[in-house]
């Protein structure tokens, strides 16, 4: 019962403590662990946020499986794979960034962060190309949706059997979820890139290479989280029944 009381003894003399230690923490250790715990908890809320979308996906995919297959086959597997690779690379550059901060290498840190920004922008660019393609093909629900491609498959997809009209109409649910899920993911990417821009400026000024790198570490967690969400989205949206 008498478990882990955390804070250590107060030695709040003003001689020793580094400038980045906030006044309400007893030690640097406590401050770092607290920030990290807070970040993990925040990621938990993010899981619940995306969880609502995944629940909707699960239900509708069970109900409208043929529509989900047909919708999924309209996505470009090449662009999807490319983006997956880009994101995995960006996770690598981010991890290297955290490593550079740990090693107190200022310029490599800035370099790795810039590389992460670049890859994040590539991802968003490819995503924009894909969205544009959906618009051209009239696959955007609500704004310009047509079931044409699913009731009368074009030459490009002539091996696909046409869907009966009522099931073809359900492809709209698939594309609603596609846009909601990838859109929420892209929003997280945009937020991530914006934060990275700030981090680069501050890293250049040497803010994270003087022993206090919690911000970089926590942002790394966020970036990997957004990456992992995509690792789930890619097979769920792009790879439904590709062997058929």
């Amino acid at each position, binding site marked *: 019962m008498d478990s882990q009381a955390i804070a250590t003894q107060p030695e709040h003399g003003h001689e020793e403590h580094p400038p980045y230690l906030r006044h309400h923490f007893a030690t640097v250790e406590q401050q770092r662990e607290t920030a990290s*715990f807070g970040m993990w908890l925040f990621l938990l809320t993010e899981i619940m946020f995306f969880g*609502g979308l995944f629940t909707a996906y699960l239900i509708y995919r069970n109900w409208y499986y043929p529509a989900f297959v047909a919708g999924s086959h309209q996505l470009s597997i090449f662009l999807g794979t490319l983006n997956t690779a880009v994101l995995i690379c960006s996770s690598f550059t981010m991890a290297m960034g955290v490593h550079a901060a740990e090693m107190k290498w200022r310029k490599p840190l800035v370099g790795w962060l810039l590389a992460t920004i670049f890859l994040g922008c590539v991802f968003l660019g490819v995503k924009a190309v894909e969205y544009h393609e959906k618009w051209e093909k009239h696959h955007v629900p609500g*704004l310009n949706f047509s079931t044409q491609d699913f009731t009368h498959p074009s030459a490009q997809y002539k091996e696909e059997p046409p869907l009966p009209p009522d099931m073809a109409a359900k492809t709209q649910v698939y594309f609603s979820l596609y846009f909601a899920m990838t859109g929420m993911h892209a929003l997280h990417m945009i937020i991530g890139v914006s934060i990275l821009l700030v981090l680069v400026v501050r890293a250049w000024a040497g803010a994270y290479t003087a022993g206090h790198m919690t911000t970089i570490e926590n942002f790394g967690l966020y970036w990997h989280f957004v990456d992992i969400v995509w690792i789930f989205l890619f097979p769920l949206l792009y790879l439904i029944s590709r062997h058929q």
Partner: protein
Amino acid sequence: MSTATIVKLPPQETASLPKRSYLNNEYGLKSWLLTGDHKRIAILYLISITFFFFIGGAMAGLIRLELLTPQSDLMAMDTYNKVFTMHGIIMVFLFLVPSVPATIGNFLIPIMVGAKDLAFPKVNLLSWYLYIFAGCFTLAALILGGVDTGWTFTTPLSTHYLNTHVITAGLGIFIAGFSSIFTGLNFIVTIHRMRAPGMTWFRLPLFVWSNYAASILMVLGTPVLAITLVLVILERAIGIGVFDPAKGGDPLLFQHLFWFYSHPAVYIMILPGMGVISEVISTFSRKRVFGYTAVAFSSVAIAVFGFFVWAHHMFIMGVSNYSALVFSLLTMLVAVPSAIKIFNWAATLYKGSITFETPMLYAFGFMGLFTIGGLTGVFLGSLGMDIHLTETYFIVAHFHFVMVGGMLMAFLSGIHFWWPKMTGRMYPEALSKLAALITFIGFNLTFFPQFIVGYLGMPRRYASYPPEFQVLNVLSTAGATVLGVGYLLPMIYLTWSLKHGKIAGNNPWQATGLEWQIQSPPLTENFVETPIVDHEAYDYEWLAHQTEHEVQTVG
């Protein structure tokens, strides 16, 4: 009878407020609006939620005034829809959810665990700003012409059939959700990592335990509400088809996602209130809370069970009979930890040295009214009864007994209990007892008739009703007037006491918590030196020992 009192104030001729405290270490608007101090943020929250409480209360007044007569004569029917919608949105999201955690909790949790501040002071301030933004959006929706979906945003009504400001209000609630997520996150991290040496989990005051449980619900539930509102907004703004039956979506999915948050939200609202009651009951019966561990774990149990009962809001919406059966059973289970609390409080009172100070009066009000509210919840949780009673005034009375009779009583109890700590001054005792009494009478007069009128079949959310229900509705409206007086009184005398109240001293109630061992109002850094805790919570013998060797330290 009421001569017995434990209030011990310092001699008023010589007493004065401490020279240095969180209230006067800095001055000016900027020192408040950019503060990182959890106590100042608590005060900011207190002012803002009081503002929204009175707006929501004005809406309630309009509702009761309209229902004075069977015809819809005071306002048009769609205006009435907007009024009850705004009443619900403001009271739930801008008052009840942040009420105890963001004000009393914000002020006390760091002090109770022996820390100088919450783990993330800037996030705490951000959470208040988000709350204010949310309030602005909600007020904008109100001023621009209102929303009439009901606070539940039922699809497809909210997405397709209404021409009101659903998106604005939805954004408001979305933002308020993040404010509440950040509060909950801050509390959990603080309770885990900022406890003082010796402050083990089972030495924490029960107020901390119940806020911890509520924070789990905030952190896990609110994001689901957020994504649900995003989908509603997207559906309304650009017409995606997740909930739209015309496009293959299922409106029932909206209900599942919405109630997955909004049922646990009920416990977000009530759990911190239960924490207040534990503190107050213990202090004014001079006993350790009976079954401390059981009460602590019952908070966690409520939080856990709370996540598995949401579909009891959907029994009439066409969910399968089997799932209705399971959810009905699980709903009954929530009554168990709630009853554990009530029984343990009663056992705490047994053979205690009870005194009847104002916070205790409100706490008694809570125990009685919450018990009625909780038991009628069991009625509604049983399938057959629910079919008859749902969407009637019975359900309105039920959740007002829990939310207003329970939570608001607990909030007022807590505000009165910790007011001397927050401000360093006492409120006028006789007047506040009168206000507690008026609130109790007014509340019962307002909401008890609604049980009857609901049982007889009067549906909720209509501006007009058959004339045979008028007597009961007149009683209810009369009660609402009394209740209004009961709420205005504390507002007036508490403000008055800021300047003219008696000096309270460090520990007017002779209570045991860490917060009572420091000066009132506290220093910005709370403790001169980090406390080392070597006793259980509610240890009155320890306190007696302390007072023998007391050294008055004034900053």
